[in-house]
């Protein structure tokens, strides 16, 4: 039989250990803070690495043109981003040199949605570009150790570095978004964030190497190395002066993982747009996603307890890991003086979503889309939710549909689902603006009510704020009371404290 007559999936040369010196690992990006610090993690491990550039609308178009037009928009963005990068580099260096010089690493070898099928889009794009043989390493997000083709050793030391980088930058991102809307000197927060990221990069570059699994884990859990780095970041943020006595609507970002995480044209630059429109953004921490992944493992094990004799032991390990993740994030948060948002309890998200969306429905954000919306309302965490739905997403359409039931029961929830497909920005943003107008109104009413309730007027509140210089510091946490907005909470805090 002539076996060569049959089609075979994409094959590529190995990335071998001796190539490490000259090969540059290009990894698909999250947001710029995490990207920079993850780059430092790779460097710490002896790799040459850099994040891919932020995806643009041109990348989306290239992804559609080179892979397939109907794929979900995150798939198009990342495929097109890779394709355009390779095109540019091939024009500069020649295709063969590009294939020798770069290895592309991304998460995306896990089902059940399109996420597990990204390889097909990449392969098509590479074929259309004539770049067959370009090396792609698609890793499984749920495994801390796995084969990376020999040249990339995905071991616990590397994976823990990436997880810790995410936790640190999540905390920093949250501090940054709680600061910028209230800064008194425009640009001060951006400068502090850039310095903070540089401090973290340095800390991760200097991370001691641990050969053994257990020693790596024990060190990461016990060291104060990263806490100290974050405390330095906090001292840098001390210099940013804020005035929180301003009623601003808080907008929580939710939606599909990629779209809620990136900051740039791929999600209409929604974070910056909302801030420019006068909102305080409550960003989507990647740590929530990691916490959720652990919950998924726990749930899958719970379902098997009766039939798998090892399930209980594995369950206990998974629960400990989840607790350690949350505890570590809490350490990072406290190192930033408790200003960053805390992680929601996964059990609570699950319970809130239960009447509308089963906790074991897999793909995308699962039940978290519904859970986060109801959690936000219950905890008065935001005035409004901006939910980023990718065009042609499989699971997101299902949870957005289930949200119809939620909105039927909670008509007061300000919920803005925005479909992101690249060419409907004006429409999506104007829809968001309509709901934001209502959110602004609520923030103002709440602020006025807080003043009325406390018997303060704005001038008196300002006088009290001026008398307490700590409150002008970005790193002073304002206690969250029974109101949503930072402004209203500050009024209540001022009234509760000494005049």
């Amino acid at each position, binding site marked *: 039989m002539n076996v060569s007559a049959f089609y*075979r999936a994409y094959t590529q040369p190995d990335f071998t250990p001796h190539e490490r010196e000259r090969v540059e690992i290009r990894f698909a990006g999250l947001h710029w803070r995490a990207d920079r610090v993850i780059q430092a993690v790779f460097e710490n491990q002896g790799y040459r690495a850099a994040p891919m550039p932020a995806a643009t609308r041109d990348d989306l178009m290239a992804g559609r043109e080179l892979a397939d037009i109907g*794929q979900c928009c995150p798939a198009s963005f990342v495929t097109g981003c890779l394709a355009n990068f390779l095109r540019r580099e091939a024009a500069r260096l020649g295709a063969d040199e590009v294939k020798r010089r770069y290895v592309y690493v991304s998460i995306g070898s896990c089902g059940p949605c399109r996420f597990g099928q990204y390889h097909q889009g990449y392969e098509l794009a590479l074929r259309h570009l004539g770049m067959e043989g370009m090396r792609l390493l698609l890793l499984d997000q749920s495994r801390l150790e796995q084969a990376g083709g020999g040249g990339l050793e995905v071991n616990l030391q590397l994976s823990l570095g990436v997880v810790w980088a995410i936790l640190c930058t999540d905390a920093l991102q949250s501090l940054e978004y709680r600061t910028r809307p209230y800064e008194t000197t425009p640009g001060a927060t951006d400068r502090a964030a850039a310095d903070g990221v540089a401090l973290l990069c340095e800390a991760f570059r200097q991370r001691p190497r641990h050969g053994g699994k257990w020693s790596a884990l024990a060190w990461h859990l016990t060291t104060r190395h990263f806490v100290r780095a974050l405390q330095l970041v906090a001292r840098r943020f001390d210099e940013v002066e804020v005035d929180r006595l301003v009623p601003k609507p808080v907008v929580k970002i939710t939606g599909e993982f990629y779209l809620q995480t990136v900051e740039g044209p791929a999600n209409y630059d929604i974070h910056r747009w909302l801030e420019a429109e006068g909102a305080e953004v409550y960003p989507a921490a990647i740590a929530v996603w990691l916490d959720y992944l652990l919950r998924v493992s726990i749930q899958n094990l719970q379902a098997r307890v009766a039939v798998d004799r090892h399930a209980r032991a594995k369950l206990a390990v998974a629960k400990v890991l989840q607790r350690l993740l949350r505890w570590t994030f809490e350490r990072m948060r406290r190192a930033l003086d408790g200003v960053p948002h805390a992680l929601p309890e996964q059990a609570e998200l699950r319970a809130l979503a239960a009447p509308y*969306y089963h906790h074991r429905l897999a793909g995308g954000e699962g039940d978290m889309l519904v859970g986060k919306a109801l959690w936000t309302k219950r905890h008065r965490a935001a005035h409004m939710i901006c939910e980023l739905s990718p065009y042609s997403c499989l699971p997101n*359409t*299902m949870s957005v*549909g289930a949200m119809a039931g939620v909105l*039927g029961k909670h008509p007061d929830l300000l919920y803005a689902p925005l479909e992101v497909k690249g060419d409907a920005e004006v429409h999506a943003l104007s829809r968001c603006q309509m709901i934001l107008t209502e959110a602004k109104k609520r923030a103002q009413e709440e602020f006025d009510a807080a003043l009325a309730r406390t018997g303060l007027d704005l001038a008196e509140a300002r006088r009290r704020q001026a008398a307490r210089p700590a409150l002008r510091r970005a790193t002073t946490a304002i206690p969250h009371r029974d109101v949503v907005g930072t402004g209203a909470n500050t009024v209540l805090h001022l009234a509760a404290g000494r005049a």
Partner: protein
Amino acid sequence: MPIPTLANWFARLRSGPSGDRAQLRIGIPRTLAIWSTHQFWLGFFAALGIAPRNLVFSSPTSEAQYHHFGRGRGTVDCCYPVKCMAGHYGELVFGQKRRLDVLFSPMFHSIPSFLDGAVKTSLSCPRVMAAPENIKAGFLKERDVFGERGIRYVSPLLDFGEPALVPGQLHAALAEVIPGLTLAETTRAAAIGWAALQRFDAGLRAESAAVLGACARRDAPCILVLARPYHMDPGIGHEIEGELQAYGYPILWGQYLPIEPALMAWMFGAEMQRGDIASPFDIADVWPSSYSANTNELLWAAKFAARMPWITCVIRLTSYECGMDQPTFSPVQEIVERSGTLFFAFQELDATKAAGSIKIRVETIAHYLEHASGDIIRQKRRLMGAGCPLEDATSQAA
């Protein structure tokens, strides 16, 4: 010889034991994974004493069904196999002469697959999994339509691909609506359900083997349909395969191909020896991310078609807005066409049957088949070599 469609098999209800439960009326929407698991439900509910006449499947999908019962209840725009489910729910809620007591709409986290063991997982498409939650919202968003009509809505999440987990999950969901139901009884009934499903699958595979055997002995062509199981629904697949069958070509469905060891050895033995694949059911050579049950089976069936000389044409059916099928378009087409087999895709199938254009395309396909089949068979026989067990008359009843 044609394969009986699942539509006929839905009608084959067995009688079950009588008792109080015999009065209980249970409705099941005839959608999505029900198309590949319905025999389980027939066996299972009959074993629990539900009278066959009281186990009500909604009608096959139709535009009229959606129009009468589902309109205004959709909560989101998506692929038609999910969207049409609102019509099925509506028919079961509003369209019954005798009211139902229970609307039973399971969420299939995974589904059993003959490829299990050779693939990573056999999960359902995320929309197949979550469709009941989505559709339910349309019946609850303003008021509880089920409650108003005295219908209990029961929608367990099932790890259907892991039979050991299923009795517990079914018992937890049904104990409140089926009087006196115990876990032991649920376990026994589930075993009867599995046996019924396996019998059914084995029966259809045997019929496929017989069809292929007949083709092999006459060196005659047949057509393979590559689609999701619910494309057997006339309102979703629009009976395109039926129109081709009218030209005299036997039709096989990718889900029910023969898998007996001798045939597998003939088809995949050389590649296994070369170490290209680990087993006949390994699809890592064409599809490394084998997570989704229906997608995996589709890819495997494409490989089968490429190696089976008498399958001279593959018809691919895909619903509009199907996110799962999109990435498989190129590999499936390449797998099939590289072997010289004809490939035709009917993409973007939606609610309305484009009868005119389907007719023209079917005529074209029939024309190609008539002229090219002989050469395709010769070429593929050369490629695969002698010794196909299907040519052996005694093997046909496998």
